[in-house]
């Protein structure tokens, strides 16, 4: 048996996930092939808003290899099956004799169900976060029936023996549309005379959510300095390199189904599928196999998942649907898309007195799983790392004829951090302070106990001063300012910009009571089981479900240290509701701070029980037992000892256990965190901006982040590198653009700039370690920190570089064209026309050339 006196947490353990992935043995949804499996392909609306006047599927049905074609109308009754009914009756292949006499009711009424007409008046929705009591929720059918509300909405489904044949048939479906007026712009959408996305709702406003703490009016009335800014959070496309995919497989024995989906949230998916499709939860198994990136886009429940499931129910065969990339751009959620109005009241010395924030948040055409709640995750974070007394926030969620939005890496917090960190630079300009100094004047004194913020929540621990001091040293701030001064004096065409971001973010979602208070439709606990097997090997079952974050490795390290074994002796089971039945899944940088802590606590329970057994075996008092390096010994008599594997064997042999003890050595823990966690950090972006071409090049990027104690430094660095890269991508490159008819003009990887290796820099990373008092391990989370911290550092650096031209503002993405135009405008020159103010595309001059 492996004896492992060393500690693995914090050490350089290479990832256990890698061997399969680097040898092409990953188990992806699209690799799943089942006997008799059919392929579904979806016809999508080319219109952003239209009535469907007719659909003719007859030619498609006659295509070779086509098993079935369904319109929205054909599937209507599938969404109204009663989940409390007899499952066998729901599947339709076991009608009682009495039912047959009655004409074969499709649903068997039970005591607590009412007999409904096949098509009910209920509102169908995938949304689980009704942020206000009076939120407007549109009816969201997986396949449209009468009306389409965004380009890409499903209109019909073809099922065929392979994808080529299914696609051939899709092309033969004839749909007549009657185009309706389209609205794509949020500010237009909330005007009284705007076209309505959903006529039935009578408005494009979904909800308005507000928060106020302290006396905001008084703060603003008394302030000497006011700063008011408007920032645009452009719409982003998540672009996981593996698109979504699902396989639904009926189980003829149980009458249930197994659903394989490329999802971040198998447990949430299971609950929603059960409700939406009327399949009792105990007859549904959901598996997330290897998942090729998510970034929030797979933290959802999508039409195609329920479509695959109900088609497998209708046809009694396995159904596969895999998204192609152009579908991914239209039919997987987008991120961000907010207009942020932010205002600061401050003293002339730069001390903040109050803050007001008003958001417009584009929901797109429908509410997805957490769509309305995303701005709320930001609502509490606008005050950032600064302490003051008065804070007011409001957000209005708006419907437009565009793809729905939802969580994209950071989900509300990158937006908040961007706004506060941009306006801190504006405050520095207004007060004549250095951006470092204005930040310092508003920092919290370092603290390690919960501390109330202007938004009324409690940060767990923070030491901004240490992080900022260290990053200034790393970057040689004074040297950089000196170089900048030289370049400015020399009128260098390539100017140097130094941009700051000092941020905190909210992780460890979430205390269940807080979620309830925010009207989120689910709990925030996490579950783990730690099973010491009779051989001394270990199984860890976790409810979090990774898609690149390396949980298998990190959880092995945690369990290994707790139990005194090697990580090699630990198997981590996850992502399958049959083997890991309880979990709230992976998002919001919650896995370690909630799921990892649950593993740690379950392992401690195993050690506690093992200690009792060891004491019994050694005929010693439990209080005298010491546990070190996988060995229990008696205090003062180290020669009297037993190993953990010996204890495990005894636990299962069960012939020499303390009186009344249950056999076995396996423990569960449901961990509901008492508070969130708040990682923080200080970033400096050093950018060279070519003022003649407008091209910005990040020369150096320094980041000192604090996510508490680190389990696996290599994985943490990887999360930061990838996270910062996604923030840089928002700041410099990416933007989803719609034309006024609601066509996504950046509808492919050709038109939407996902940065490649030449477009991104290297990063200089360091850490400080401030443990969280929230959990037993002191850990905070790191999955989104880079994406949250970096966009304002990049944009502040671009503005800093251009400040000699009088530039004080630029929107994301700071493309060469936009930078060049900003310089021209700041100097009062003709800069060409810009058709849509969100457009990052080259405008045409009157002469026809590019501006």
């Amino acid at each position, binding site marked *: 048996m492996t004896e492992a006196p060393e500690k693995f947490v914090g050490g350089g353990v290479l990832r256990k996930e890698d061997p399969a992935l*680097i040898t*092409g043995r990953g188990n992806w949804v699209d690799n799943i092939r089942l006997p008799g499996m059919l392929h579904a392909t979806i016809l999508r609306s080319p219109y952003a808003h239209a009535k469907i006047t007719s659909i003719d599927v007859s030619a498609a049905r006659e295509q070779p290899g086509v098993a079935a074609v369904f319109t929205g109308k054909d599937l209507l009754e599938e969404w109204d099956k009663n989940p409390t009914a007899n499952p066998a009756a729901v599947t339709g292949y076991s009608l009682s004799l009495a039912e047959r006499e009655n004409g074969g009711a499709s649903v068997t009424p039970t005591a607590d169900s009412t007999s409904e007409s096949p098509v009910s008046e209920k509102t169908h929705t995938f949304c689980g976060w009704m942020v206000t009591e009076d939120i407007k929720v549109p009816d969201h059918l997986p396949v449209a029936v009468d009306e389409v509300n965004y380009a890409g909405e499903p209109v019909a489904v073809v099922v065929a023996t392979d994808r080529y044949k299914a696609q051939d048939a899709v092309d033969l479906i004839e749909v007549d549309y009657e185009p309706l007026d389209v609205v794509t712009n949020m500010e237009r959408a909330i005007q009284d005379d705007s076209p309505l996305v959903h006529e039935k709702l009578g408005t494009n406003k979904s909800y308005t959510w507000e928060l106020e703490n302290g006396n905001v009016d008084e703060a603003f009335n008394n302030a000497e300095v006011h700063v008011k800014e408007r920032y645009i959070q452009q719409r982003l496309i998540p672009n996981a*390199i593996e698109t979504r995919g699902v396989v639904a497989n009926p189980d003829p024995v149980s009458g249930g189904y197994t659903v394989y989906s490329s999802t971040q949230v198998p447990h949430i998916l299971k609950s929603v599928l059960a409700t939406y499709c009327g399949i009792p939860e105990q007859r549904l198994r959901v598996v997330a196999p290897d998942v090729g990136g998510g970034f929030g886009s797979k933290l959802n429940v999508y039409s195609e998942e329920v479509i695959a499931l109900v088609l497998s129910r209708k046809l009694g065969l396995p159904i596969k649907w895999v998204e192609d990339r152009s579908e991914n751009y239209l039919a997987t959620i987008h991120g961000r898309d907010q207009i942020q109005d932010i205002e600061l009241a401050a003293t002339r010395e730069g001390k903040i007195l109050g803050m007001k924030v008003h958001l417009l948040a584009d929901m797109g055409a429908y509410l997805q799983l957490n769509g309305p709640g995303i701005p709320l995750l930001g609502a509490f974070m606008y005050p950032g790392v600064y302490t003051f007394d008065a804070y007011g926030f409001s957000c209005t969620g708006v419907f437009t004829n565009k793809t729905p939005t939802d969580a994209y890496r950071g989900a509300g917090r990158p937006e908040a951090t961007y706004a506060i960190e941009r306006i801190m630079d504006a405050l520095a300009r207004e007060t004549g302070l250095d951006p470092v100094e204005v930040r310092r004047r508003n920092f919290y004194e370092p603290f390690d106990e919960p501390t109330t913020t202007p938004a009324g929540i409690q940060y767990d621990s923070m030491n901004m001063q240490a992080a900022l001091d260290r990053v200034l040293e790393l970057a040689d701030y004074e040297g950089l300012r000196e170089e900048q001064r030289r370049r400015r004096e020399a009128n260098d065409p390539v100017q140097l910009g130094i941009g700051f971001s000092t941020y905190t973010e909210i992780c460890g979602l979430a205390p269940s009571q807080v979620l309830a208070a925010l009207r989120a439709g689910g709990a925030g606990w996490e579950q783990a089981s730690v099973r010491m097997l009779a051989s001394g090997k270990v199984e860890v079952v976790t409810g979090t479900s990774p898609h690149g974050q390396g949980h298998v490795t990190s959880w092995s390290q945690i369990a290994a240290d707790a139990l005194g074994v090697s990580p090699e002796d630990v198997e981590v089971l996850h992502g399958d509701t049959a083997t890991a039945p309880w979990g709230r899944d992976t998002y919001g940088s919650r896995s370690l701070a909630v799921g990892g802590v649950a593993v740690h606590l379950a392992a401690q329970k195993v050690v506690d029980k093992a200690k009792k057994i060891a004491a019994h075996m050694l005929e010693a008092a439990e209080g005298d037992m010491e546990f070190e390096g996988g060995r229990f010994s008696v205090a003062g008599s180290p020669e009297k000892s037993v190993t953990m594997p010996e204890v495990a064997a005894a636990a299962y042999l069960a012939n020499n256990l303390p009186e009344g003890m249950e056999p076995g050595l396996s423990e569960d823990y449901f961990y509901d965190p008492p508070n969130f966690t708040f990682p923080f950090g200080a970033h400096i972006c050093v950018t060279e901006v070519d003022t003649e071409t407008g091209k910005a090049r990040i020369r150096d990027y320094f980041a000192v982040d604090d996510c508490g104690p680190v389990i696996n430094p290599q994985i943490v660095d990887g999360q930061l590198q990838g996270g910062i890269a996604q923030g840089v991508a928002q700041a410099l490159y990416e933007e989803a653009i719609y034309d006024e008819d609601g066509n996504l003009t950046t509808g492919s*990887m050709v038109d939407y700039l996902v940065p490649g290796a030449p477009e991104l820099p290297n990063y200089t990373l360091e850490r400080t370690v401030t443990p969280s008092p929230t959990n037993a391990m002191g850990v905070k989370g790191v999955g989104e920190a880079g994406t949250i911290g970096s966009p304002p550092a990049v944009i502040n650096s671009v503005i800093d570089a251009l400040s000699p031209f009088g530039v004080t503002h630029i929107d994301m993405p700071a493309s060469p064209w936009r930078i060049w135009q900003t310089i021209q405008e700041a100097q009062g020159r003709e800069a060409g026309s810009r058709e849509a103010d969100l457009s990052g595309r080259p405008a045409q001059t009157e002469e026809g050339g590019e501006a």
Partner: protein
Amino acid sequence: MRRIQMTVDGRGHIAEVEPRLLLLHHLRENLGIGGVHWGCNTTNCGACTVLMNGESVKSCTVLAVQADGAEITTVRGIMENGLWHPVQQAFHETHGLQCGYCTPGMIMASVSLLKENPEPSEQEIREALEGNLCRCTGYENIVKAVQMAAPYVRRSEPVAAS
């Protein structure tokens, strides 16, 4: 239907295919090689990169019939004597992958790069991999992996040549 023959990772395969079938889909659907991934089907992301007669190609942009008679190497076929290729080993050691979905294509593009340029600079590595998108890593550790693998690949070349 056209009858085609090709060698994939050292094994011969004969098949009847439609002329429109992509090499990517032939490898995945007909030959069951799940280690060739895809991410866009439009030559942008590079997840489907394989070697065709020793040169890297994006298999979503090659018709199966164009690969008639070709020798195809995928990420499953680059191990030598039961050991990982140095590029595979280096991706593991530098944490050059997270979700692992772009990885087979990224590894094959790197193998191809080191064949053509055994001692690439950082900039050359970044430019050579520009057709392979990774959404997880930010590329820094991928670049490090190629740098780490390069001397090992160089040293093994004479052995392979003899």
